[in-house]
C-alpha cells in the first residue's frame, strides 16, 4: 500500500491558509491547508467551469475558486455559490477528494481510503523541494551511492544522512530533500544533483 502514497511537498512550504498545485500519478491536484491546519488534497478542477482550484484562495476552513468564488469545505462539498447567496448548493457539487497526510515534514497524497503506510523519515530535517527536468530513470546519474527503497532514495552527503523522496511527474521529477546535515550545504548539493541529472539527459 505504501506505493499508493505520493510525496507532494514539504510541510514547511505549505503554511496555514495556503493552496498549491500537486499531483497523484497522472492526476493534477490542489493541496491546501486551512486556517486551523487541516490538510486537503482534491482534483485540481472546480466542478463548475473546470478552473484550477490551486489558483483559489483559503478563508478559514474553506477553499474558494478564483473564477466565481464557489466555496468548498474540507469534506469537498460546495457550501457557497456567491452568485446565488440564498441558495443551498446541491450535495452533488463536490470536489473529488484524495487522502492527504503529513509525517516527518513531508506531505503525502493517495486515493481516498488508502491505508496510511509511510516510510520512516524521522531524525531528518526537511531541506527543500527541487524539480528536475528528467524522468526517474535518469536519477541514478546524479545520486551515485544512493539506495532506493520505493519512493525514497537514501545516502550520505559529507558524512550526513540524506533522504530524497521522489515525486514522479512523468516528464519531470520533484525531489523532496531531507537530511541530518547543514541545510544550506544540502540545498546547494541538491542544485548540483539537478545539474548532473539534467546534463546527463541532454548529453
Amino acid at each position, binding site marked *: 500500500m505504501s506505493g499508493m502514497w505520493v510525496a507532494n511537498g514539504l510541510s514547511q512550504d505549505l503554511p496555514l491558509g495556503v493552496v498549491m498545485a500537486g499531483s497523484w500519478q497522472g492526476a493534477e491536484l490542489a493541496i491546501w491547508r486551512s486556517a486551523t491546519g487541516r490538510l486537503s488534497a482534491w482534483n485540481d*478542477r472546480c*466542478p*463548475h*467551469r*473546470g478552473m484550477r482550484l490551486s489558483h483559489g484562495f483559503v478563508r478559514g476552513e474553506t477553499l474558494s475558486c478564483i473564477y*466565481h*468564488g464557489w466555496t468548498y469545505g474540507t469534506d469537498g462539498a460546495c457550501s457557497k455559490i456567491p*452568485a446565488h447567496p440564498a441558495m443551498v448548493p446541491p450535495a452533488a457539487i463536490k470536489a473529488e477528494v484524495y487522502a492527504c497526510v503529513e509525517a516527518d515534514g513531508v506531505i503525502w497524497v493517495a486515493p481516498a481510503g488508502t491505508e496510511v503506510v509511510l516510510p520512516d523519515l524521522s531524525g531528518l530535517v526537511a531541506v527543500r523541494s527541487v524539480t528536475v527536468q528528467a524522468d526517474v530513470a535518469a536519477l541514478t546519474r546524479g545520486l551515485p551511492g544512493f539506495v532506493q527503497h520505493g519512493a525514497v532514495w537514501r545516502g550520505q552527503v559529507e558524512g550526513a544522512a540524506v533522504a530524497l523522496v521522489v515525486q514522479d511527474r512523468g516528464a519531470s521529477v520533484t525531489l523532496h530533500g531531507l537530511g541530518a546535515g547543514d541545510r544550506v550545504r544540502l540545498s546547494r548539493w541538491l542544485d548540483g544533483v539537478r545539474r548532473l541529472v539534467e546534463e546527463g539527459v541532454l548529453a
Partner: protein
Amino acid sequence: MIAQAVLNEWYPVAMAAQVGAWPGRQTQLLGSDIAVFLDAGEIVVQRADGSALAVCLRYGHVWACLGTPAHDLFPIPEADQPGRRLVDCGVVRVKCSPLRAVENFLDIAHFPFVHTDVLGAEPHTEVGRYEVQIREDSDEVWATKVHFYQPQAAKSASGGIVTEYMYRVAAPTAAVLYKTCPNKPDAWDVIGIFVQPLTEELCEVWPWMALFDDATPQADLIQFQQMIFLQDRSILENQIPRLLPLDPGKEIPTQADMTSIAYRRWLKRKGLTYGAQMVAA
C-alpha cells in the same frame, strides 16, 4: 475533419488598419496556415497553397471564411450610429478554446473575483434572474435584463452603479455586449470580442468598442479594455479541459449561467463544435 458548418462561418483574422504588404500577417485559421496582406490596395487572405479566401472588412477588422460563406457577416447597427467612437483594442493570444473565450465574455458572476473593484466586488456578488433566448429570426443567442453592481463600470464611470447588460452571441466566435453608458443613460455602450480560432486550443482575441465617450483619451479606453481582458486570460489558460464540454454533466451550471447554457446548446444544435468536447473524457 472540420465540419462544413464551421468552415462556412466568418472569423476575424486581422485588424484592417494594421495589414501590410507581403508577408503581411502570417497566422492560422482553424488549423490552416493563412497570410493576410495588402496587394495593390486590396486586403487579401490566402492559404499556403496560394488560394484566396472569401474576405469582408467590417468593424475595423478583416473577416475571412475558409469554406463558402453561409450568410453575410452579422450586423452591429451601432457601429454606424453617429456620435459613437469606435475603438480597436488590438489582439491578445490565449492558450484556450475559442469557445471558452466567448463563454467567459458572456459571464457576469466572475466579476467580483477576477475584475475585483472594477467590474465587481464582494459582497455584491448576486446575479439576479435574467432572460435568455435563442432568437430564431437572426439565429443568435441573446441575454437581456442582466443586472449587476459594479464599482467602476467603465473608464468614464466615477463610482459604483447597478449596470444593466444585454449579451448577444452573433457568430460562433464573436459576441457583443450592450451595457449602461455612464455618460448617456438612455444609450448603451457596445463592446465586442471577436475571436480568431487558430486551433481548437489556441485563439487570438480582438476586443472592440463603440462608445459614447468624447472625453477619455483613446489610449485610456484601450488600456481599460486590455486590463479587463488580460485579467481573464490567466483564468482561460487554466480551465480543464481546454476544450469546451458540450455534454451536460461534465460541468455544473447554475441559474447565473443561463447564457452559457444557451450558447452551448446553440453550438451543439448547429454543429459548431470546433473547440468543443463532445464526449465527457
